[in-house]
């Protein structure tokens, strides 16, 4: 996966570059996506499968593992990310996902779209959109739909 994994708490301790240079986009800068699991959520399957699909679609993915909003935003800034993808099934989304949006805006990075995937009760979807989450992808979402959203106009 041509992406990097950052796993430590606070400031990331190590980066691992595993780019295979397979897909070089010449005309246009690659879309950079920061993917993180929120808080202490335990489920990595969705985030990894999506990260891999985005990679295969030619994007650069920086995979963070479990993180808190402050670190996710710090990484998005450092990596000049175009979009931030959050994943959680634990139920912590109403607390942590809007915080990512809020801190991004505070740092003047409000143009970075934040998307969310996982087990999100339907009632929470309009509330999250209100709080600035660009799109929510629940269980059963075709990955194609996520790729289309991410590669759309930024």
């Amino acid at each position, binding site marked *: 996966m041509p992406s990097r*994994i950052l796993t430590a708490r606070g400031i990331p301790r190590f980066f691992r570059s595993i780019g295979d240079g397979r897909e070089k986009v010449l005309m246009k800068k690659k879309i950079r996506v920061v993917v993180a699991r929120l808080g202490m959520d335990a489920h990595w399957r969705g985030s990894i499968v999506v990260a891999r699909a985005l990679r295969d679609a030619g994007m650069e993915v920086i995979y963070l593992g479990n993180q808190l909003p402050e670190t996710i935003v710090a990484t998005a800034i450092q990596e000049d990310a175009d979009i931030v993808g959050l994943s959680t099934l634990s139920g*912590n989304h109403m607390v942590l996902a809007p915080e990512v949006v809020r801190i991004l805006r505070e740092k003047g990075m409000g143009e970075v779209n934040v998307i969310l995937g996982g087990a999100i009760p339907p009632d929470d979807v309009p509330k999250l959109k209100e709080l600035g989450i660009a799109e929510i992808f629940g269980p059963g979402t075709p990955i*194609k739909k996520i790729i289309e959203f991410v590669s759309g106009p930024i």
Partner: protein
Amino acid sequence: MSKLFNDNAIEEIDREKSRWKKQVYQPAEGVEKVFETLSGIPVEPLYTPAHTAEMNYLNDLGFPGQEPYVRGVHPTMYRGRTWTLRQLAGFGPPEETNKRYKFLLKEGATGINGVFDYPTLRGFDSTDPFARADAGRGGVAIDTIEDMRILFDGIPIDKISTSLVTCQPICNITVQSMYFANAQMRNIPLNKLTGTSQNDFLMETVITVAPELLPPKFSFKLSCDAIEYCTKHVPRWNPISFAGYNYRESGCSAAQEVAFVIANATACSEELIRRELSIDSFAPRLSFFLSAHSDFFEEIAKYRAARRIWVRIMKERFGAKSPRSLKLRFHVQTAGVALTAQQPLNNISRAAYHALSAVLGGAQSVHIDGYDEALCTPTDLSSLTALRTNQILQLETRVTNTIDPLGGSYFVETLTNKVEEKTLRLLDEIEGMGGIVKAVESGWIHKEISNSAYEYQQAIESGKMPIVGVNCYEMEDEELPVDLFEVPETLQIQEQKLKKIKNERDGAQVRDALGAVARCCEKDGNLMEVIVESVKAQVTQGEISHALKDSYGTWDPPLF
């Protein structure tokens, strides 16, 4: 020993089958679709005695309660005692979960199956900054022994068995110690306690990785410490439940699920023998936790194959003599990953099929998922419906009438052999790497699971794997017919209790208790021996985890 069928009969059947296939069996429009199991084993149109002609009945199948236990671990199976109805429950503060346990017991559950919240499973206190949004989510929050007291208050833990879904060794080493210490404080001797804890190092280092992981070899050590402790002091406790269910949820195939649990159990056995325990002192208490996924027959084959592999490893590799060591006993949970958020009531029928496969495969206990689990923690209604589904299976369907009713099915026996072959190949591969701990350290396991998860997803995306309501028979503008569960306020309650305890406890005792943990790490002693005492000084779970991480350091898992 003689063959199941005589050679002439087999020849005749084969000949007639070829004729049938040519003249009678005609796939629609002459195009043969590809038929295969969920894990990719090709499936033929028809199975006959020829498929099982090479089998030796007594060696390969035998009788229930006898080697090789393929037909069941108990002589009478469900005619004697049916499977335990063990519904998973846990959420919010322990005060709330205690009420749910009492509710389920009143409604006929025959055991407790307690799950802990995300911070507790990873060894964090509810008040840790990392935990602040997850306290009480996915399970019950436990910070100190006081929480454990509240959780089991009024529940006769000397009479009913308790499963503690502690998942990770770093959680188990403290939470299980709290359970034991709490029993001692209730004047219940440890040898009266019955139950199971999960305690699986693959959960910590591969499946549900979190920030600040212990390195695999230390997580593995903690897991073995608990097994050793229980072997010596809590003889009726199953100190580990190899969590194949969770491996499967994160993407494994059926064969990977079985191979990884057995490789893990093999590694634990080797370590405990190195610690001078005899195989027959602990092996009878090693237990397994498997998934019931959507491929009905493959799952049944999986359970049967797992039993056959286990008995051979125990006998041939470890020289086990006690029949109890040779029996692979397992709890089943229906596959959460197979549930859909779309048209959630459909999940009631899905989970019922899953549970039926578990029972036809000879499970010792079964949890059926709530139909709303793709959306939220199960509500009272969905938990009750799941329990009732289990009861209908047990009381109305009469599948319990005879033992291993699918034994001898040409198809099921063939599939059992195929799953066994696939699993043995994986076990050889892991052995070649130096065992499961090495396979985790190198990231091989992570990669295997991630590849399977990706393939699974691709199969759904391409429509190769139909999922009703997701990639076929979708309904637009579907109104969700369910009330969703909301986790009760947890953080504030835990915060208040922790504050009070930290104010009132004896500081010197706490320092001594944590000092004892650090010294035990240094001299490589058995940590559970120390922690069962430490938790009585009101030391928090997070404090003990910090002491362990200070001694052992942390580990960054490889990229999937």
